[in-house]
Every structure is written in C-alpha cells, then in structure tokens.
C-alpha cells in the first residue's frame, strides 16, 4: 500500500491542483477567472424569500366537468343516443340511458382510438373518465388519470403565469420551479420583503367587463357583487362582454384631465369587435370592470368604444395601477394559489450567519489541527495537510457542481473537519500496533494501512448512507448540509488514502532504517 507509481502521483497532485483552483476561483474577481463556476449562497446566507404555492385544482375540475356536461349532451344528440334526466350531482354526471342506446353508448364511450368524448391516454393506458352503469342509470366522473391530466395542465399554465408576474415585477434572478402537480416553488434571492410579490401571486386576476343590471334584486342572469371597498354593492349581469383573455397590453397612466392614475389597455381584434358592439348598444349604461369577483369601478358609457383601447379608472395610486397593469398583462391564473410555506431571511441576518459560520469554521479547523499536531507530531502534520487538501477538494467539488451553500451546509463542512481526521487516526493507531510487532518500518506501515482499510471504509459508508437519506428527505437548507457532509466523506477518503498515504510513504521510505514512533 505504500508504493505509488509516478503516473499515479502525477494524477493525484493534478487532481488536487485542479480542484484547489476551483475552490480559490470563488474568491477571484471576474477578470482573472478561467471558469464561471462558483458556489451559490443559499437564501439563508444571502437573504431572500422562499415561497411555496399550492393551486386549488378542485374548481378547475368542476369547471371542466361542467364543460363536459354540455359536450356530452351535444355528443349524444349527434350520435343519436337516447338519454334522460341528465344532471351534475356530487361532482359526477348522472343520466338515465335508453335500453336500446346502451350498447352504442358503451362502444363509443370506451373506444380507444380517436375518442372525442372520453380521451384515451396512451401514456397511462387509461381513459379520462370512469363510468358506472347500473341498470339504465349511468354515472360518469373523472378517472384518476383524467384528474392528473387536469392538474398537470393547470399547474403548467399557473407556472407560466407566475413566472411572467415575478419577471415583470423586476426581481433579481428568481428561481421558479414546479413541485409535483399541485405546487410551485418561488425563490427570490435578495428580497427581504416579499409582500408585493405575495400580493401579486395571491390574485387570480380574472378580469371581466359586464353591464350593471337595472334590476334591484338578483335574478337568473345576474348576481350581486361588492365593490373593492367591501361596502358598496351592485347587481351585475352574468353575461361577460369582454374578459382579460382579450387584452393584449395594459399600462399605468396619468389621466391628464382628471389628474388620476388609470390603467389603459388595448384589446385584440376579437375583443375590439365584441367591445365595440356592446358599447354601441349600451350607451348610457354602466359597465362594471370586475377583478376576481370585486368591482373595481363601474363607469357610465358615454360613447361607443370602437378603437380597441380603453382605460380603467378606480381608486388607484401609482403602485396599485402598476400592479393591476402587470396582472392584466401576465394573464389570469387557472385557479387561486395559496402560499402554504414562506421563509424570508433579511440580508443582515444572512451576513451575520456567513460571518459566524466562517469564524466557527476557522476556530474548529485550528483546534483540530493543533490537536492532531500535538498528538501525532510529524504524522499529525501529515494529517493536517490532508485536512487542508480535503477542504480545497470539498470546496472545489462544490464549486464545479455550483452547489448551493447554506448555513447548515457550513456546519456540514465544520463537522467534516472534525470527522475527517478519523480515517487518519484509525490508520495511525493501527500502524502503532503494527510497529510493535514488526521491525521493518515499510512492512509495518504497509500492513497498518491494509488492516485499517475495512474499518475506514465501513465507518465512512455508514455516514454516507445517513447523508444520502438526508439529501432525499431533507428540504431547503438541510439539503445543503447533506450535500457538504456527503461530498466531505468522499473528499476525506481521497485526501487520506491518496494524498496523506503518499506523504506517509515518502516519509517512511526516507527513514527506513530509523526508529519511527507515532
């Protein structure tokens, strides 16, 4: 175990130099860098906000079921399938089928190819809907896979909208990711007050233009709605003149005549046509502008608006007008999002944490180095060198993979420092025993390394197992701990078994004849 071929030595030292370069490059200024790789600081160290959003997909499923309800009726008529008493009950479609149409219904509804009414998913090998026939009573509802498809498509849409809103709000390098098919993770580095983003993300931004009804009470085609102040209310028609989908742009503006902040918008061609038609017919009526079931304002239409541009006035200041314009530009969410987890760290706490972590690392490092030196002298120095190299390797690997360093991650590095010497201690203690029974230094050292090997490996693999499990089950900062601990074990084994062993072997070959004491 003490012999190293030249090639191996070159390889070991090149790897050390290579990784050390990366670990130093974190501290180099941009101009002197060969690579752009650097360790990212976690939100707990650089400050910032972590938000976990969850979409409530139940209303979407219900909405889709209602659409399907109309489609189904139309489809049955086209296909000449006789049915009666169709209705939606407990989130299921219920109807009674004519005995003669039963076979036809089953054959078209369970047709695997080109089924327009009950989609067959090749990837799941399953239908969009489950159906249950009991005599002539039929129940249809979404299958597990139908719901997964709805969730997937709505989370994808929500992700897109969230991304647009966060980007438009001008945050610095946001990180927006899908988590499963119901959640979206938003990381906003450097943001210590996420309240604006939270308000932007908390709005569905469903915009509609509808006429205020002349009736005093709610009717079949109208509903009661509150204004934004939650006091004033009005009866509005359920018929939607124009929705947010038809807008192509929206901007905050200062209205020169009234000196009020307004939001101006422009419509696409279809929207322009619809809006023109409605406003021509509705001169003198009040048109309610409704956002998420609250009336922003309800101006009287003085003249038809045919040019495809309009403006929304309301009780805006410049900030709220800017935000409304942003919401309108980025589009409506398919369903409301709620914030189920938030973690925000202010920049000064982050700085304090980096400072404390660095101090603890330096002190821990010095204590361990001194301890090893006093305990093992020359071999302690070798173990200390190995520890320094180990740190460079560890930081170098983290840099190459651009890992995220968190506060627990720093703790993992410090812990690695404390535990890394273990491998060398195991080996040195073993060599001590071997020297007692073997006079030849080279043989004694060689068998010391050999006999310690299984213990060193077993001991490190157990910690590696713990780190791996932590990596998969830990969240956020704790994952950072698992990463540094795990990488630390690998770098420890390398620094001990290649670097320190090489140093030891050089020393032993030089002092073959002398009495070596550990």
């Amino acid at each position, binding site marked *: 175990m003490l012999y190293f071929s030249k090639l191996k030595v070159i390889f070991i030292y090149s790897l050390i130099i290579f990784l050390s370069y990366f670990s130093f490059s974190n501290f180099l200024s941009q101009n002197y860098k060969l690579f752009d790789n650097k360790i990212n600081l976690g939100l707990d160290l650089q400050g910032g906000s972590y938000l976990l959003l*969850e979409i409530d997909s139940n209303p979407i499923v219900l909405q889709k079921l209602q659409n399907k309800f109309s489609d189904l009726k139309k489809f049955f008529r086209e296909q000449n399938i006789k049915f009666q008493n169709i209705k939606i009950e407990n989130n299921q479609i219920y109807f009674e089928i004519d005995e003669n149409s039963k076979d036809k219904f089953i054959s078209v509804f369970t047709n695997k190819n080109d089924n327009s009414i009950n989609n067959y998913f090749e990837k799941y090998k399953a239908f969009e809907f489950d159906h249950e026939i009991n005599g002539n009573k039929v129940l249809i509802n979404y299958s597990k896979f139908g719901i997964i498809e709805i969730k997937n498509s709505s989370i994808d849409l929500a992700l897109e909208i969230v991304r647009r809103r966060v980007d438009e709000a001008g945050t610095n390098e946001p990180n927006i990711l899908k988590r499963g098919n119901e959640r979206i993770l938003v990381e906003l580095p450097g943001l210590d007050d996420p309240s604006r983003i939270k308000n932007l993300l908390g709005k569905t931004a469903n915009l509609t233009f509808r006429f205020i009804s002349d009736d005093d009470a709610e009717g079949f085609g109208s509903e009661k709605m509150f204004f934004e102040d939650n006091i004033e209310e009005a009866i509005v028609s359920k018929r939607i003149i124009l929705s947010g989908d038809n807008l192509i742009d929206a901007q905050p503006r200062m209205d020169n005549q009234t000196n009020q902040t307004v939001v101006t918008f422009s419509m696409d061609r279809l929207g322009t046509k619809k809006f023109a038609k409605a406003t021509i017919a509705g001169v003198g009526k009040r048109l309610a502008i409704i956002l998420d079931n609250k009336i922003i304002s309800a101006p009287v239409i003085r003249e038809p608006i045919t040019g495809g541009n309009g403006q929304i006035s309301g009780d805006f200041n410049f900030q709220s007008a800017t935000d409304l314009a942003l919401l309108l530009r980025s589009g409506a969410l398919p369903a409301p999002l709620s914030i189920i987890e938030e973690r925000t760290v202010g920049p000064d706490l982050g700085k304090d944490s980096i400072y404390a972590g660095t101090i*603890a690392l330096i002190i821990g490092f010095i204590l361990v180095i001194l301890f090893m030196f006093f305990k093992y002298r020359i071999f302690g120095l070798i173990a200390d060198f190995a520890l320094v190299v180990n740190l460079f390797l560890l930081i170098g690997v983290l840099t190459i993979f651009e890992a995220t360093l968190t506060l627990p991650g720093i703790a993992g590095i410090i812990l690695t420092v404390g535990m890394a010497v273990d491998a060398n201690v195991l080996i040195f203690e073993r060599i001590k025993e071997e020297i007692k029974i073997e006079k030849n230094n080279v043989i004694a050292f060689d068998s010391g390394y050999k006999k310690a090997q299984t213990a060193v490996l077993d001991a490190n693999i157990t910690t590696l197992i713990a780190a791996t499990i932590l990596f998969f089950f830990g969240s956020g900062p704790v994952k950072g701990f698992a990463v540094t601990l795990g990488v630390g074990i690998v770098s420890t084994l390398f620094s001990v078994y290649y670097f320190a062993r090489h140093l030891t072997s050089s020393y032993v070959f030089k002092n073959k004849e002398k009495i070596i004491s550990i």
Partner: protein
Amino acid sequence: MFNFKSDIQFINYFRIFIFISLILIIISIGSIFYKGLNFGVDFKGGTLIELRVENTEIGIGDVRQSFIKMNLGDVNVKKFGKGNDYLIKFEQTDKNKENFIENIKTQLSKNLGGNFSFRRVENVGPKVSGELLRSGLIAIVLSLSAMLIYIWIRFEWQFSLGAIIALIHDVIITIGFFSILEFEINLSIVAALLTIVGYSMNDTVVIFDRVRENLKKYSSKTINEISNLSINETLSRTIITSLTTLLALLSIFFFGGKILQGFSFAMILGVIFGTYSSIFIANPILMKLKVSQKSLLKED
C-alpha cells in the same frame, strides 16, 4: 496524551451502565410522552419572526404585549442571541390573508415605534408542517433500517442487532434531552439526529470490525474476552475521534450563531452518547447473543 494502552475491564462495568442507560431511556420516553416535544413552526405550523429592536428601552414585556394585542393565537416570545433580538412564535399563518406580515409590522410600529426590523420570517401552513414531520420520521426510520441492513450484509445479524439497539438508544436519549430541556425540535434537529445515527454507527462499526478480526485471530477466546480486548485496542481511536468531532461541534455551538445552536447541541449529545453506546450498549448485546467464532463461519 490519550494513549490508552490500558487493559480496562470494561465487561465489569457493563451491568451498571446498562442499568443507567435503561433509566435514561425510561426517563426520556416518559418525558416525551408526558411532557411532549417542543416542536418548532417547521413541524407544528405557524409563524416565526426574528425581531430586532433598536431601541434598548423596549423590553421583552413590551414586545410580548404588542403581539398579544394582535390576536394571533397562542403567542410565544423569547430573547434570542443579542440583547435586543427576539424570537416570536404564534399559531396563525398568512394563508389567504392579504398583507398579513405587513399588518403586523404596521401595528408593531404603532406600539414600539419604528426602530425595529424583521430579520427572519417563517410561515408554515398546517399541511406542509404535517408533511415535514412525516418525512422527518420516515428519514430517521429509513436511516436506521439502512444501517441495519448494511451491518447485516457486512457482518452478521447479531452485530446488526447490537448496532441498531445502540443507535435507537442514542436517538431516544437525545430526543429525551430535548423534551426535558424544552428545546425546540425543527428541521435541523432531524438533520442532527440522522448525522448522529451515522456517527454512532461509525463508532460501533470500528469496534465491531476489530471484534470480528479478533474472533478470527484467537480461536480459543470467549466473546467476553474478545469484546473487552477489542474495546481496549480501539479505545484511543474512539476517544481521539470523539474529541476532534467535539472540538468542531463546540466551535459551531459557541461561534456558529444562534441558528445553529440547537443543531450543534443535539450533535454534541449524540457524539457523547454515540461513543458511550458503542462501548457499553453494542458490545454487551454481542455477548448476550452469544456471538462466537462459529457465528462468522458462514461468512468465509
């Protein structure tokens, strides 16, 4: 220094230490069930605010009063680190409440004046906290099982059982300490527990490795003699490694900042009990299970 060339008769002390361990475990489990655990917002849900007040005339009483006024449910205020830093925990979260944190800030500046800042805000809904707790428990159980299987593969079932009982001993006592001292259990404590499992295993494995080697080497010795010999042979390594690890952990505890203190405290307990259990729990079990040279025959 730390050269334990000694020939300590560890086996003579096994009985008394097992007795002590049993008492510690009973106290721990009793406290966990009777007194419960002080779960942080990670596992209980709720809101945590780390508040720094610049005005030194404002005391903890003022801070507590102004939070209680806001009707946020059960409010817990305590000092945190430096004189004017406070950690405030309460039940409510901002789920679907617009400007929740904003409103707290506004009300607080009415009561305390403007000179304060929120250094950290954590807000965990009940669904997420339930999931975090579940995945934490799964992680601990999984890591214990992984260790059980690993040692089973590398050694024999008797070794695996001995090691796992030692690990469970360490985890229960560490959690027991947290329960008795009412220290907060959060995500980083789970990380510490997993690391303790790894560390304690590491310690046990080194001794077991030597037990296995000595079993092969001395065909006439009993497991009691071999266990005692192996502990003695590895003792200086056991102590040196525990010391260097403790040095690193103490430096995190004293210098690494308030946030890492719970984590490093758990680790310190774990390293102490892990080292202890490797000698005084894992080995007596090997003896109880009558491990002998024959137990290893299957392997070679």
